[in-house]
């Protein structure tokens, strides 16, 4: 077994995670976590949909921000995809997508305030970078032959519209629809930094112990995501896209003086602002690195590695829940429901809930990341096993799992896992806002105490870390010859 590179790689990652566990702060610190958890589930079972009209407004705003943000992101991303072959464009896109939506929101909040533009840009900017990458990959795979057969002198635009777009249309549409679902999740969590979406409502209900209100919100959110095929129809899309900007709410007006001050003063490193010059900059950077960046990076990396392995284990345990090769229809239906809930809940919301219930430590973050990402990967590989046809005398039960299925899906499983590595790290960093000592914690503290210059440096470091992991993940996937389509 050890001669397989995939197995060796898996064991190395497992070992790293186990060593990480020695250093990680994993504990349940709440006094009575199980009672709180019970109360919460009681709340979900007795949802209160009518406590205030705020819930419906929050739902409407969540949909509106998602539509406007994803639409703007898709348009910009498409334009960027057309010039994606240029290295500066690639670097630019990698950079803007390496910064999480919530970080973008935190930045824009400082100078646009609670204006709708903050929420729209927070989604649109990182999504542009993601769309640019995936769209360009899809366009590259179009059949080049029809383009070569066009009469010479055909305009570039006409050639593009006739030979590229029709060939890629289905994939472009599928991916954009998938991103819209992600956009709804992003939009919901923007509420946690104060925008008027579902996250805001959830945080308010939770902090007041109104679990039934929070339960109602979660149920509505699942229904919203699960019914996307019903209410997002191609014919209705123009209505949503044109209508959505009118439902973003008014927020507060933009003070342009703040915008100017932010760029010309706030984010300039304080030694430069105070005229100490480059001599003062080095100790400033040094202190920032030692006191904030390095602990942040250390915790982010440890948590990411533990969460990555936990995600993998959960995905491998969960995929039989929806696989045709096991159990009856009842188990598969409940398996489907479990996986849909696990992957529809944004990590951030899961982590927030668990953190409220179990108290601050890395444990809620690991569980939240593993549940969400494990749910996604488990769903994808579970579906993949349904296309495998076993010989009719294949073993049953655990032997079927271990001898027939896992060996066949293991490469696909690793491909998905390494694809999500960067996503897990981006989320890990952002979970710091909830009080876990990852990079997001230091960014958030810097912003709270109006040290925007430090916050910007920390965000840049986070982005670099994400880009690094992305490159490493791609390197490992190439080394192991793993392939995946960008739809997870």
């Amino acid at each position, binding site marked *: 077994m050890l001669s397989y590179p995939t197995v060796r790689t898996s064991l190395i990652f497992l070992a790293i995670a186990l060593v990480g566990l020695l250093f990680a702060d994993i504990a349940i610190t709440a006094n009575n976590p199980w009672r709180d958890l019970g109360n919460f589930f009681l709340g979900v079972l007795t949802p209160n949909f009518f406590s205030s009209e705020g819930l419906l407004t929050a739902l409407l705003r969540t949909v509106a921000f998602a539509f406007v943000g994803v639409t703007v992101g898709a348009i910009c991303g498409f334009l960027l995809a057309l010039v994606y072959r240029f290295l500066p464009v690639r670097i630019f896109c990698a950079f803007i997508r390496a910064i999480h939506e919530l970080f973008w929101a935190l930045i824009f909040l400082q100078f646009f305030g609670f204006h709708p533009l903050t929420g729209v840009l927070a989604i649109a900017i990182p999504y542009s970078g993601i769309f640019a990458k995936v769209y360009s990959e899809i366009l590259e795979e179009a*059949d080049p*032959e*029809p383009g*070569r*057969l*066009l*009469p*010479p*002198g*055909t*305009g570039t*635009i*006409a*050639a593009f*519209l*006739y*030979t590229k777009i*029709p*060939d890629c*249309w*289905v994939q472009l549409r599928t991916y954009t629809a998938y991103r819209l679902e992600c956009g709804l999740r992003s939009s919901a969590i923007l509420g946690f930094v104060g925008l008027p979406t579902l996250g805001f409502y959830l945080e308010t209900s939770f902090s007041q112990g109104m679990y039934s209100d929070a339960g109602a919100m979660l149920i509505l959110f699942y229904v919203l995501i699960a019914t996307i095929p019903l209410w997002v129809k191609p014919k209705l899309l123009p209505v949503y896209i044109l209508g959505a900007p009118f439902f973003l709410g008014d927020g507060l007006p933009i003070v342009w003086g703040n915008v100017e001050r932010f760029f010309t003063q706030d984010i300039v490193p304080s030694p430069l602002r105070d005229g100490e010059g480059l001599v003062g900059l080095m100790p400033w950077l040094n202190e920032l690195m030692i006191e904030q960046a390095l602990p942040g990076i250390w915790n982010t990396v440890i948590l990411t590695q533990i969460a990555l392995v936990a995600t993998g284990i959960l995905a491998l345990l969960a995929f039989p829940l929806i696989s045709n090769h096991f159990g009856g229809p009842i188990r598969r239906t409940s398996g489907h429901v479990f996986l849909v809930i696990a992957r529809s809940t944004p990590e951030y919301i899961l982590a927030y809930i668990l953190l409220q219930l179990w108290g601050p430590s890395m444990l809620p973050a690991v569980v939240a990341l593993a549940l969400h990402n494990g749910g996604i990967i488990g769903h994808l590989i579970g579906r993949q096993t349904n296309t495998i046809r076993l010989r009719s005398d294949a073993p049953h039960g655990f032997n079927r799992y271990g001898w027939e299925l896992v060996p066949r899906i293991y490469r696909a499983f690793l491909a998905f896992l390494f694809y999500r590595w960067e996503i897990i790290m981006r989320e890990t960093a952002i979970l710091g806002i909830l009080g876990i000592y990852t990079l997001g914690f230091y960014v958030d503290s810097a912003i709270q105490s109006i040290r925007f210059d430090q916050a910007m440096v920390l965000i840049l470091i986070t982005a670099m870390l994400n880009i690094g992991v992305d490159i490493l993940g791609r390197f490992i996937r190439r080394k192991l010859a793993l392939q995946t389509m960008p739809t997870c």
Partner: protein
Amino acid sequence: MAGFDLSGLTASFGGERVIGPLTLTVKEGDQVALVGKSGAGKSTLIRLIHQRVDRESSLVPQELGLVNALPVFHNVFMGQLDKHATWYNTVTLIRPFKQDRMQIAELLDALRMSEKLWIPTASLSGGQRQRVAIARALYRNAPVLLADEPISALDGPMAHHVMKLLKDRFKTSVIALHDVDMAMKYCNRIVGIQDGQVALDEPTERLTAADIMSLY
């Protein structure tokens, strides 16, 4: 000018010379059949000629090069994308103009598939797809036809019908064919290819089928 005079045609694949160096002169009015064993280099030669006389030729490649997601109409219309402004082509993509609709419907009628005008090419049979590629070449209406096995997926009567149509519409052509009888019937010059070289080049009336069979 519809003829061409190509010399020094060569092609290599994986470091091994598969074509040439050979010289080929085609005069206006020449309807050339390229014959020879499969693997002799016919397809490669068609590609080479196309690269040299791009602007002057309507090409029917063996892989057809259709955009599967588009209907038959648009696949045929692509033969004249260079004749219209971008806005015209864009509007046509969404809603074709009447004159183009009629022209292309007529062309498909001649190929006996007018009822397929708005069907996506992905859902057509192999023979129908081949006729769409031929319709595109006819619509392109270049002075020279370059076709690589254009009737390989057509049944007997349809194959004759299409070859007659190509003979009538293109005064000058180079068509790779593996069917010797078809070549003798619809082309006025036979060029035999063997191991990447011209092994035979005669007007059809001076040849018998037996002469050509020596190439195989």
